[in-house]
């Protein structure tokens, strides 16, 4: 391999304590790149069908990509595993500096398998790798854990990815946190780490990443800087953080409100990015090599949490803990944000679990006594903060909500299923699919469930754009038609390549054209990769991920959304009256399956699987 890779993987078996350095297999690297691509490949190959996500046979694949650690932004890693929240493919991606550091230590990927008999953490110091006792860290929050490990190892620049109490308690949507407040948030990677009794992975690297053609990399960097500077949406991410989005989604009344009862939150301005900048913000933070710096640091100004330093808040939490729960207080949002980070859990799933409980209460399905006496009225900030804590500790009602909305609804019964806002078990982020109809496809078809970021559809649906799918004129957010299906197909492929390279979806996802993506990959790796090949790799990985899910029992019936979106028109604002039409939705699904070469049950056809070079995974079941 000419550039971009270190050529080595680290395999750690926690059951036996064995640590092995392996070569990175060159053929899969060429076919799946790295990140989520390589991770999905290894997952399908190494984790047996029907494996218990919290059992010994599940594995964690921490994969960087060829572009991680180079100047092309930004240095991310992806962790792939079977999800305890959804029981299908799970992956989660995080930036900060941990991913590049793993690569500087000399590894493209880290594979964690088995279960340790007692709590441990992994210490990777270039070539020397050891498992260390972590009994004394068990129970510590993520901030504490990072601090204590750095101190213990006597090096303030050690990068630590760790779990908090939520991961230890197997909260099904527990996250991994690195670099203070950067999260591999979704799908419950933290619970898998907790089940393996792995508290943290600390990394220090002194090596570097070589690229095949440095001059070409510099050219790419120059080009992307030109686009970046003139792209208004990306500029607003710098100015207002991801919370910039609040104004966009609110503008078209697609800002999920009170557990998706509406897309219009009357008090949205109190939650918006400009408000955040004016009130709580103290610092903008950038991940490794990223010019955008969408990260925020805020300080809580009043109440019992006064003085709390918050690494955020991010848009998704502004939605889930804000409008989603009928709450307009940005300080409450910020406290919840910091608490989910400290406990180590996904604020999207956690926020949606709380709004699920609030709606169940409103509909008379959950009594106050059953909720530990907490007042579950919409917008009750004290209750929300208390629920975050209870979920993180699996205490009282928190134990039920820690299961995620799908399982919690099943356990609660009483018809509460219709208030679990998820697809395939993964709760939705802050984009209302009746007002942004392309998102209906993205949510329904996402290989990790109801995820908002497997495509760039959300940019098209708010009427801005992504250079990954250049259009002559903006699409109609309220249309569900073949144009959207085409965009879904193209974008899921390209975004999957972004997640395998591994780049940031705010940066590459918006300012990169497919051709810039192709030249980045070829400049760094030295492989010949053109636009067609980018799409090809994306299609291959996407199909591979579907194969994993099909193996675990997923079919067309799972590619759907809750009843609410088909039967309850949105009540207010720009999107008033908008609802999904069942017949159109099914037609679009048919069209999608045809376009990607899957049969009408959503199973990839054999010839398609072979054509993509995935023959080794046949027969499917």
């Amino acid at each position, binding site marked *: 391999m000419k550039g971009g890779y270190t050529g080595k993987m680290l395999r750690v078996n926690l059951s036996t304590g064995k640590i092995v350095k392996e070569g990175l297999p060159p053929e899969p690297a060429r076919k799946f790149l790295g990140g989520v691509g390589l991770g999905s490949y290894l997952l399908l190959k190494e984790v047996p069908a029907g494996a218990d996500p919290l059992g010994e046979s599940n594995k964690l694949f921490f994969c960087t990509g060829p572009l991680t*650690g*180079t*100047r092309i932004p930004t240095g991310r890693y992806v962790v792939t595993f079977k999800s305890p929240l959804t029981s299908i493919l799970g992956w989660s991606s995080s930036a900060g*500096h941990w991913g*590049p550091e793993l690569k*500087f230590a000399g590894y493209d990927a880290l594979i964690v398998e088995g279960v340790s008999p007692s709590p441990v953490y992994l210490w990777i110091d270039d070539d020397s790798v050891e498992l260390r006792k972590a009994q004394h860290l068990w129970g510590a929050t993520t901030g504490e854990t990072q601090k204590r490990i750095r101190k213990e190892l006597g090096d*303030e*620049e050690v990068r630590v990815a760790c779990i908090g109490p939520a991961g230890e308690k197997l909260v099904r949507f527990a996250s991994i946190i690195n670099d203070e407040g950067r999260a591999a948030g979704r799908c419950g990677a933290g619970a898998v780490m907790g089940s393996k009794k792995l508290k943290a992975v600390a990394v220090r690297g*002194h*090596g*570097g*990443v*070589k*690229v095949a053609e*440095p001059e070409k*990399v*510099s050219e790419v*960097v120059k080009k992307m800087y030109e686009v970046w500077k003139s792209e208004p949406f990306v500029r607003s991410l*710098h100015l207002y953080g991801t919370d910039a989005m609040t104004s966009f989604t609110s503008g078209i009344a697609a800002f999920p409100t009170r557990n998706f009862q509406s897309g219009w939150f009357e008090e949205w301005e109190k939650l918006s990015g400009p408000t955040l900048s*004016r009130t709580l913000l*103290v*610092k*903008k*933070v*950038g*991940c*490794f*090599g*990223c*010019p*955008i*710096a969408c*990260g925020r*640091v805020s300080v809580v100004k009043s109440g019992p949490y006064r003085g709390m*330093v918050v*690494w955020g808040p991010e848009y998704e939490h502004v939605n889930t803990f804000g409008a989603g729960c009928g709450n307009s207080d940005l300080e409450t949002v910020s406290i919840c944000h910091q608490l989910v980070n400290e406990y180590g859990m996904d604020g999207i799933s956690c926020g949606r679990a709380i709004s699920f409980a609030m709606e169940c209460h409103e509909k008379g399905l959950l009594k106050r006594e059953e909720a530990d006496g907490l007042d579950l009225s919409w917008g009750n900030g004290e209750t929300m903060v208390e629920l975050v804590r209870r979920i993180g500790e699996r205490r009282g009602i928190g134990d039920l909500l820690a299961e995620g909305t799908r399982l919690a609804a099943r356990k609660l019964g009483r018809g509460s299923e219709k208030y679990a806002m998820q697809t395939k078990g993964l709760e939705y982020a802050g984009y209302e699919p009746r007002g942004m109809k392309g998102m209906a496809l993205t949510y329904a078809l996402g290989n990790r469930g109801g995820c908002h970021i497997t495509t760039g559809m959300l940019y098209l649906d708010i009427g801005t754009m992504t250079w990954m799918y250049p259009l002559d004129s903006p699409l109609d957010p309220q249309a569900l038609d073949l144009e959207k299906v085409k965009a879904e197909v193209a974008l899921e492929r390209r975004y999957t390549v972004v997640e395998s390279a591994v780049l940031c979806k705010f940066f590459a996802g918006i300012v990169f054209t497919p051709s810039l993506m192709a030249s980045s990959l070829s400049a760094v790796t030295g492989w010949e990769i053109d636009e067609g090949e980018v799409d090809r790799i994306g299609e291959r990985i996407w199909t591979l991920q579907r194969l994993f899910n099909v193996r675990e029992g997923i079919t067309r019936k799972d590619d759907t959304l809750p009843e609410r979106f088909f039967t309850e028109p949105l009540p207010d604002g720009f999107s008033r009256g908008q609802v999904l039409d069942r017949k159109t939705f099914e037609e679009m699904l048919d069209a999608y399956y045809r376009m990607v070469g899957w049969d009408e049950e959503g199973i990839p056809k054999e010839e398609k699987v072979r054509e993509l070079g995935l023959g080794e995974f046949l027969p499917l079941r």
Partner: protein
Amino acid sequence: MRLYLRVDLDKCTGCRTCELACLDAKKKEYNPKKALIRVTFVPPYFFLPLSCQFCEKPPCVSSCPEGALEVDERHRIKVDPQKCIGCTWCLNVCPFGAIVLDEETNVVRVCDLCDGDPECAKACPTGALELVPSETAGLKNRISAAQKLLAGLMLSGEALKEVKG
């Protein structure tokens, strides 16, 4: 006239683009440990990029046992690769940790301000790095302090933003 890199702590986001730009210019390999500007995270939430300050009385120069370092006419630190024995004593005495040992050549490296047009400052996306003469270094700080003080007295936060642009 002595030039050095002024850092605007409010603006720096800790993105380390400056490190990468330095590597692009000097090493063609992305290894931040070899960059001549390094960004340090200072809890709770600050980032400080540090590079050679071109001290008026540079301890690195005066303590080099081989006399391998000297201050040139533009007030930059010049390393004589013939004389440097790679003992890293200068690393020990530099108060800013601004010297790097090149493991390939076993000779130390110091920031040379890229011939007066430093790549790191050009690349910094927030404009946090600025090449300023030491004579006027205090000026910017003084102005910004004055603005803040006045703002506290009589201007609203909004108006301050306009003043600052």
